[in-house]
Each structure stands twice: as structure tokens, then as C-alpha cells.
């Protein structure tokens, strides 16, 4: 699609969508939202970019190496945070019991591991949505002749 209006508008809008997505991720423990919703919003900005320019430009913006790093990294990050619990003498994924400081409820940096887990989930969801979009949309050009 080669349309000036769509391209200009999406170029203008994408950073704001991303900012909003990160806001939703980071304020997940204070307001409605969280890793899933925020990650989906961030992903939708990238998908919008890919749709309004073209798919190659979109996939150049986020290469395969980076997206697979983000996918695995988000999940491994989650496991690492979980293992902190065991390291500090409690169970897997422990928060208060592992002695993590909970902070003042209502502040941005409160809730112990919740903040970090949301971040991991957000990254994971965003990269998954983007990768799914590109692999589904790019899946048709190499039509299967083998069988």
C-alpha cells in the first residue's frame, strides 16, 4: 500500500501507541492493564507500521534475530525472576517470602517482583504477536510444492 496520508499518520501515531503500551505495562499493578494488554498494544504499533509501509520495511525494523532474542529472553527473564525466590530461601516465584522489598503501595516501583514479571510478560507478548503476524503474512509466498 502506497498512500501518503496513511504513512504520515501512522509514522506520527506509532511512537504514541508505543508509549501508551509501555505505560500500560509499567502501571499494570496500579491500574487496569498489565503485561498482556501492554504487550499487545506495543505489538499493534509495530503491526500498524508493517501494514502502512510494507511488510519488508516492518520486518527490517525488527529483525528475526532480535525478535527471537526477545521471545526467548522474555520467558527466560520470567524464570530467572522466579529463581530469585529459591535463591533467597523461599519457593519458586516467591515475592514477599523471599524478602523482596514491596515498596509503598501506590508508587510506581512497588510490588516487588510484580513489576519485573510484567515487564518480561510484556516483552514476550509483544514479540510473539509481531512474529506471529509476520510469519502468518509472509507464509503464503513460498507456496508448498513439496509433499
Amino acid at each position, binding site marked *: 500500500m502506497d498512500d501518503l496520508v496513511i504513512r504520515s499518520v501512522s509514522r506520527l501515531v506509532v511512537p504514541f501507541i508505543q508509549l501508551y503500551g509501555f505505560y500500560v505495562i509499567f502501571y499494570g499493578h496500579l491500574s487496569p492493564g498489565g503485561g*498482556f494488554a501492554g504487550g499487545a498494544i506495543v505489538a499493534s504499533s509495530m503491526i500498524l507500521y508493517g501494514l502502512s509501509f510494507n511488510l519488508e520495511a516492518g520486518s527490517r525494523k525488527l529483525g528475526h534475530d532480535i525478535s527471537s532474542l526477545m521471545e526467548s529472553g522474555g520467558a527466560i527473564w520470567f524464570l530467572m525472576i522466579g529463581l530469585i525466590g529459591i535463591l533467597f530461601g523461599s519457593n519458586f516465584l516467591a515475592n514477599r517470602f523471599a524478602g523482596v522489598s514491596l515498596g509503598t503501595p501506590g508508587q510506581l516501583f512497588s510490588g516487588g517482583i510484580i513489576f519485573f514479571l510484567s515487564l518480561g510478560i510484556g516483552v514476550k*507478548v509483544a514479540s510473539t504477536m509481531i512474529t*506471529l503476524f509476520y*510469519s502468518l503474512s509472509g*507464509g*503464503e509466498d513460498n507456496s*508448498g510444492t513439496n*509433499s
Partner: protein
Amino acid sequence: MELIPKLINNSYYFAAMILFVIGFHTMLTHSNLIKKIIGMNIMDTSIFLFFVSIGYVRGGRAPIIQEGAGFLYVNPLPSALILTGIVVAVSVTAFALSLIVKLYAHYGTVDADEIALIRAREER
């Protein structure tokens, strides 16, 4: 018939069950695979509706704790579970769609009956 007033009381559950049957029907009887996936989503959504309405309490607020006591909050657990359920449904849908993309590339159709016909013709 004392069934009707009870159903009106539980109208959300009732609607969820109707949707469940619709999804069940779509999933099992349509031969178009995309429609099957739509049916699967209807079915999953009906269960989400059912699950979330279990947690509702009349007059309750969203479970984001505010200053001051005495507020009634809705049950937070079903909403939290359904967040997981939605992601699961999305994942299954995404995988199913990617399979259908490939199936279309191989057979040129997304209709399960036609695919069965093509295969039967080949094996003969």
C-alpha cells in the same frame, strides 16, 4: 414453569450456555476450517463470559483497591484466570490459522470435505 424466572435471574449464564452450544455446533458440523476456528472462538468466548460473570457481585467495583474502607469489590480471581484463558485461546487460534495457511497452499481449499475428496481421489 419455574424454570423461566430462574433463567432470567441467571441470564448471563444462560447466554453463555447458548453461545457454548452454538460454538459446539459450528465446530463439529461445518466443513469450512475457518468457520470451525470461528466456532472454537465462540465457544471459548462463551466460557470466558461464563467465568467472568461468576465473579461479578452486584454493586461491586473493579478490584483496584482505593483509599477508604467499605467498598464492595467484585471477585478478582475469575478475571485473573480468564486473562490466562484468553491468551490460551489466542495461541490456539494463531497456530490453527498458520496450519490453515499451509493447508490452503497445499490443497487450494480450506474445506475439510473437499480436502478429503482430493485425498481420496489421489489414493485411488
